[in-house]
């Protein structure tokens, strides 16, 4: 990060432009708050204090007001998640089709519980409410990927797929 972080945006130029456009889109600036938080979280990984301050500044409200809204929503987080955030649905359709067994297998394999992050930072795990994939229950969401009609035995394969993706991405970024 640039030493002169005060004048530099903490967001990429592309995101900054997107946020600027969002603020213009609504009759009242603060209406843009939730989408701004979502996009910022996608880029930064979580809503850091700096993100909250930057969003508050763009909308012209206090940081407290941003937190008032942000803390309401479970999909907005204030701590870094893993590179791949595994969200296991345990709502009724998924539950009836064995989502709890699936969720337990994830916990066992990863050694973490709800909202936990693995020590290497690759995975985080969350038990979530309905993700709208009831027809293919039980379903999970890994970042924005949907994986469905799973059973506990599909867990190791899923994890190794993402682990190798993380590894190659890491190598690419170091090259």
């Amino acid at each position: 990060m640039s030493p002169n972080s005060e004048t530099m945006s903490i967001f990429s130029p592309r995101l900054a432009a997107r946020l600027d456009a969002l603020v213009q889109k609504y009759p009242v600036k603060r209406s843009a708050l939730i989408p701004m938080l979502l996009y910022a979280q996608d880029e930064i990984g979580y809503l850091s204090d700096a993100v909250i301050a930057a969003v508050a500044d763009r909308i012209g409200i206090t940081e407290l007001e941003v937190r008032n809204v942000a803390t309401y929503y479970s999909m907005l987080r204030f701590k870094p998640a893993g590179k791949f955030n595994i969200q296991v649905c345990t709502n009724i359709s998924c539950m009836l089709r064995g989502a709890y067994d699936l969720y337990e297998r994830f916990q066992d394999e990863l050694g973490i519980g709800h909202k936990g992050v693995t020590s290497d930072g690759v995975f985080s795990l969350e038990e979530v409410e309905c993700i709208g994939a009831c027809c293919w229950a039980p379903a999970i969401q890994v970042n924005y990927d949907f994986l469905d009609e799973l059973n506990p035995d599909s867990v190791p394969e899923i994890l190794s797929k993402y682990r190798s993706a993380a590894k190659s991405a890491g190598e690419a970024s170091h090259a």
Partner: protein
Amino acid sequence: MADVTFTVDGKKLTAAAGTLLIEACRKAGIEIPAFCYYPGLSLQAACRMCVVRQEKVGKLQTACTTTVAEGQVFITESEEIAQARKATIQMLLGNHPLDCPVCDAGGECEVQDMTFKYGAGESLYAEAKQHREEQQWSPAVYFDRPRCILCYRCVRMCGEGMDVWALGIQNRGVTSVIAPNEGDHLDCEQCGMCIDVCPVGALTSGSYRYKTRPWEMTHVSTVCTHCGDGCKVTLGIRQSNDGSEIVRADNRDKGGINGDFLCAKGRFGFDFVESPDRLNTPLVRNTQGKLEPATWEHALTTAANKLKEIRDNRGGSAIGVIGSNRTTNEENYLLQKFARTVLGTNNIDHQRTADYAAFARALAGQSGKTAGLRDIGAAPAILLVGGDPTQEHPLLAWALRTDVRLNRARIYVANARNIKLERQAKAVLHLTADGYHNLAATLDAGSNDFSKAVLAEESLVVVLGPECPGTAIESLVAWGLKRANVKFALLGDHTNSRGAADMGLFPDLLPGYIPVSTPAAFAEYPGLQAGAGKTLPEMLIAAGANQLDALLIVGADPVATTRMASESLKNTFVIVQDLFLTETAALADVVFPAASLYEKSGTVTNAFGDVQLVKKAADRAGVKSDFEILVRLANAMGIEVKSLVPFSKRGTSADLGQTRGAQAGEADRSAVWLTANNLEPRLSPFDPLAILDEIARLVPGYELDRMNLYAGNDVRTELGATPGFVPVSALHNSSLIAPAHDTLFTSGTLGQYSSALHELEEHQKNDVATTAAD
């Protein structure tokens, strides 16, 4: 809006269409319980306590959001409604501790009251209570999370009411929690309004919590002693070893000019009365030149003998008197009468914080042109010239914000500084520091958007800040008088600056701004000098040049405020009446320990000319009111006290003047006036009301509405009532005006001795420092 008629519990009620049902019922004496509803704030409809049954409507309706319309029928109490309220309480008590006997709010808690009225003896909820430790958010504000019932009153009060927005609500559902803006502490104006509106013991006050029980206190409504707004404050008093102490200040009587409001100074800044630095005994300088404790008799005799000796040998002009801007009207009046009739001098002045003489001059002969706080709070448009009300006049700022929020008033700010109230302003005009002179011309020209908008207003209140020099006051008042429907107010600092000016603490003006050269009714003062006396700076210079032999200083600290050299008073016999050993008192020859405004009675006039009754609340052994000290001093000088304070059953001279004619003897004007006004003579020389009677008789504009005054209401005094013209005088140049520029946490001498205010100031300072470093 047109009135509509509807039925509540079988009673026909009438209210304006669109009135909230809960308000209409309260006005008709039907109480509907509510936790989240708070008059004047936005509607929340969060608590479901105010549910009522409306005819032909399927579900119970919330009375706080139902607006009345023609022909509606409501039932506010029934089996069904009681059951609904009981269920609500059961929910609230699901996690609320049931430890009322140790809770700070026990005895004045709305949940406690409602549980008593509707609550169940047992609960269906078996879940364990979630305990959280109490948090301290600032020296003033503590938060006990499990007690919170999430009514949002504090959040709305802080945001909408105070425009501070320091409280928020975080998380969702059962995990919702009230949160301060700095994570674990508050960065705010520390007004304590959140504590005041909290219906339970969730937000508690650092200065009051766990000290007493509400029913153990006596509650006395009096006037705050800090700024010039004159908020009505209710002091909770409890017996103590040396009299009675103030345990709490709040505004439970919401009928004052301040309505719901009280700032940090009013709410927490009363502790100066208990300061260990308080003087409890008179001090007299001994032969070794040191101040030592003395009896009242000794101190009074020493001071009286010296004053008498100087007056008799050198004349009154060798004595100077400096009055206070925080003593009562009666004390100020008595002081100038004492100076003019007993000491025989016009050398009397006070530390002027705003040019009220210029204001009176500009308004002379005009009636109904000054605006009281209630007028300002209801005005459709306000032009605020100078001043920073948020810091210096918190109640005025509250009144303006509330006026904008509830009445859509328009505020126009013309100021050399940037002030917080610009956030509510419709238009802002930035002036240069000396730009106030030309403002009237700028407005008249109508050449910018600001003046166009101001000129378009059909009625206007012009509020003049303390930095407006006399010439600007005159030009702006003249500008306003040319237009119809313009009223004025001038902002002075300290609790009774306006009273000090109105009561004639001027070297050239008598009470009511009447020139000493043409004393009119004051011709009855025996020995009144015709020539103007010395101003405060002139007195201090004269003292330094050994031309002033004695100085009587009441409730003022000129050595500190004028930064004068301390040795300049070396050869002057200085008498000081004050609460503390101020820099001036430390140089004095005799020091009398004075009572604070909370320990005496009388009246004070706020900056806007609203006169209010001061009631004795606390009591402290060893001190006397400035009124009593002056009367005793006069008595010790051998003066017939009746001539100073008209008291006793038989009148002051036992001559009603009816039989022997004017030549045979002067009529007892006081007795004649009292009889004409159907008032009884006062029986004690220490009764301030005896002087209030004389003020009403002699001072133009102070024929006060006694009924309302005694009832604890604010009554108006009229500046323009001064007959004739107040002359321009060399003694009224703007260099004599020194606005106090107090902040939310300072209050002249008194503030220096309030540890509560110091703590708040420190908290805010450190807070700002850490935020800036991030």
